[in-house]
């Protein structure tokens, strides 16, 4: 009987063991962050070390974030209307969103390019691209306002943009979607004639003078998808590198049909050469229709100009402008290291990261070391241009940034990690997980000749369990890493605004003390500016009523208005008379179909209001401006169209 007890015990143990082995294995855990808190803590009253200018993706904005704290300071509306300050609603700003398609209130802003001089950040401007209705925008880094937008003709899906040359000579805009271009007849073709009729374009936009962005020339290329780009620098200054995919020239089910070739191309463009051809009058002036919008700083008024031609160079006709470098499997990022010698291609479906040498490329071009042609143009021999491959870097390499100390950092979308590797030795030296599925990554100054290093931010596409959940849509998550040491250390998770793609960061000291605090009233050239309460007035021009209004703590002048009739269009031109920092006034009126306006000190903004019924309507200041902000209000009376109430206005009577 003893034995049978033993058997029973054995049975229990066996079952127990089986049950234990039935548990799933332990997943790789989160990394220990040690003393991270003190490294990201910016004490009250202290400043962050870096401004991080972050694209907002599908919100069409940029956000301004401090590093290392991850705090958001400002949302800069660029391609999307912004009711909170009236951008795209106020009469002054509406023109900024004009395109050849009319007023477009939204876009998809993917990439940031900060202006550079000699390849280093100079803190003048941030540029952003509109992916959907192709445009590029300039944001002034002293006011954090969008001051200029240029539409790109003959383009669709302006994804490969706005990368910048070493002295901000040009920013580029190249087409993700090739489309048929030219006149109506050549654009109206069957989609199945992609190979014959669809063209890519690469626009070089002169960008070094504010208000004067223009397309210096536009390269016409075979129909492929341009993805990303980087300008050469130092020794490779004068060249530009564009990653391409869908060199298969598929027009349907691209996820399969554009992934067939082992190699697509990085297109190397000798833009100095292109400049020479343009100077020699070789460019072809073609008809186009696109809009250039500029903001006049003095009046605060944006205006649109239609442009009707663009100068083109078909790269097929100028064989020494562009060369194709084979690059494994649908390259996404193409990034140039700080010395300008190495070009890193990130084939998003590739198992290696190829690193190309600029010197070898020049040699291969010189010795005509071609492995074939693409649409009649030379394709350089892969091995002849290659410095080497980083093997087993991880899965799904997308983008590479540099720390200026000889290391590169590549984001791995599929394996959710950031991989640090030695540029000379092409060896992986460290890797750190991201949470989750990192897209772009950013090192302050990473794309410049002098990276500021110190930190790395991963902008992730999947958030999952990182924050308190908020229904189906979650904040996109970013991670801040310390890269000052040998090992990458995770410091901080922070949620972001919109869906960030690329971002750049620059030292706060470059722009902090250049910030505009207010606009001098005496320099205000707005035609409806009202520079003192006494100058307030109302003018009727037929159905249009123009109210010349002032705002100062804590009243509007005038604040009682009568004599408006149904059918009138009322324009409130509000001038903020304050001449001090951080005292904007807002203006909102009941039933307005637009938005509020937020008027900076010394500026004039106009809100259009079309009353739809008879009555007395309040208006008020929306920005808490003083202790008596709640008293900052007024009334406007609307009478029937047939009434004969005369136009009167008053303040304090």
């Amino acid at each position, binding site marked *: 009987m003893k034995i049978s007890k033993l*058997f029973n015990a054995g049975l229990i143990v066996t079952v127990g063991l089986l049950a234990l082995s*039935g548990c799933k294995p332990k997943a790789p855990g989160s990394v220990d962050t040690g003393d991270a808190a003190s490294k990201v803590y910016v004490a009250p009253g202290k400043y962050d070390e870096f401004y991080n200018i972050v694209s907002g993706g599908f919100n069409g904005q940029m956000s301004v974030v401090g590093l290392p704290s991850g705090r958001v300071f400002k949302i800069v509306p660029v391609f999307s209307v912004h009711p909170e300050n009236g951008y795209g609603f106020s009469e002054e700003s509406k023109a900024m969103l004009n395109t050849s398609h009319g007023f477009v209130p939204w876009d998809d802003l993917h990439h940031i390019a900060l202006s550079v001089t000699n390849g280093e950040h100079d803190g003048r401007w941030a540029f952003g691209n509109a992916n959907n209705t192709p445009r590029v925008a300039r944001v002034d880094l002293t006011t954090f306002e969008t001051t200029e937008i240029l539409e790109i003709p003959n383009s669709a899906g302006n994804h490969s943009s706005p990368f910048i040359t070493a002295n901000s000579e040009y920013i580029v805009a190249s087409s993700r979607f090739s489309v048929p271009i030219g006149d109506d007849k050549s654009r109206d073709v069957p989609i199945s004639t992609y190979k014959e009729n669809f063209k890519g374009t690469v626009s070089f936009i002169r960008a070094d003078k504010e208000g004067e962005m223009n397309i210096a020339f536009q390269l016409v290329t075979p129909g492929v998808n341009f993805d990303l780009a980087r300008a050469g620098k130092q020794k490779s200054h004068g060249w530009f590198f564009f990653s391409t995919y869908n060199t298969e020239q598929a027009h349907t089910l691209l996820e399969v049909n554009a992934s067939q070739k082992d190699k697509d191309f990085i297109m190397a463009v000798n833009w100095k050469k292109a400049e020479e051809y343009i100077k020699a009058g070789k460019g072809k002036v073609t008809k186009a229709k696109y809009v250039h919008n500029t903001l006049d700083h003095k009046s605060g008024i944006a205006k649109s100009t239609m442009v009707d031609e663009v100068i083109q160079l078909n790269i097929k006709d100028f064989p020494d402008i562009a060369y194709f470098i084979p690059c494994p499997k649908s390259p996404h990022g193409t990034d140039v290291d700080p010395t300008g010698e190495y070009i890193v291609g990130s084939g998003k479906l590739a*198992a290696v990261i190829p690193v190309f040498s600029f010197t070898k490329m020049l040699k291969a071009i010189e010795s005509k070391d071609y492995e074939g042609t693409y649409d009649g143009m030379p394709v350089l021999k892969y091995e002849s241009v290659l410095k080497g491959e980083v093997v087993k870097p991880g899965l799904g390499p997308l983008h590479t940034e540099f720390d200026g100390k000889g290391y590169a950092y590549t984001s791995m979308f599929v394996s959710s990690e950031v991989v640090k590797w030695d540029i000379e030795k092409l060896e992986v030296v460290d890797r750190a997980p991201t949470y989750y599925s990192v897209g772009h990554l950013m090192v302050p100054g990473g794309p410049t000749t002098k990276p500021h290093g110190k930190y790395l931010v991963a902008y992730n596409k999947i958030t999952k369990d990182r924050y308190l959940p908020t229904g189906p849509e979650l904040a996109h998550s970013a991670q801040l890493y310390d890269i000052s040491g040998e090992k990458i250390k995770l410091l901080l998770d922070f949620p972001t605004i919109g869906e960030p793609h690329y971002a750049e960061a620059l030292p706060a000291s470059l722009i902090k003390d250049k910030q505009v605090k207010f606009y001098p009233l005496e320099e205000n050239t707005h035609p409806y500016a009202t520079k003192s309460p006494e100058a307030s007035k109302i003018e009727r021009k037929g159905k249009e009523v123009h109210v010349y209004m002032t705002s100062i703590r804590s009243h509007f002048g005038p604040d009682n208005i009568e004599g408006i009739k149904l059918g009138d269009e009322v324009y409130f031109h509000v001038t903020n008379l304050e001449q001090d920092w951080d005292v904007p006034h807002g203006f909102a009126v009941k039933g307005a179909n637009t938005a509020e306006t937020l008027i900076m000190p010394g500026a004039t903004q106009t809100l259009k209001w079309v009353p739809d019924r008879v009555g007395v309507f309040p208006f008020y200041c929306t920005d808490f401006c003083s202790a008596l902000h709640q008293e900052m209000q007024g009334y406007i009376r609307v009478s029937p169209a047939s009434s004969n109430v005369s136009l009167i206005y008053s303040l304090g009577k």
Partner: protein
Amino acid sequence: MVAAYFLPFWQILMWAPQYPEWLSMQIWLTKITGDVDIINGLNHYIGMKEIDAAMFPEFAIMPWILGGLIVFGVISAVVGRRYMVLIFLLLLLGAGIAGLVDFYLWGYDYGHNLDPHAAIKVPGMAYQPPLIGTKELLNFIAYSAPDWGGWLLAISGMMVILVLIREYWFMKKRTLQ
């Protein structure tokens, strides 16, 4: 053993950085449940076939096989003869091994027979799931093991073995006396 009709008998779990919550798939006698759609969505990038019930003709016969085994088990219990129990054990083991072989063959085909037009092709890489245990497949950690139903079947087999051992032991004891 009857319980195996109402419980999944095999499980496949998958972990990746972006799936910290694990993806899971349960195989029942007649169906597959769990995150099958998500797994299919992921696997189409590397050209793996879509998993669905039609992929497994086994589902049509497995309930009958298990039913047959149960019936045989009951008969052998009623008959109460040792050789019947031995046959029953051999049948059980045979069915178990056949099941595993079948599962391995399916896994081999599923992991190797890839669409040549797949977006992601990693040279030399196959995606055969582990037969039992843990295996790293690209960014995923895949884990394959019996589920409750499978464990119950295993325990049933174990009990048959115990019965046999005890039977033989007692016989030996009696012989010694």
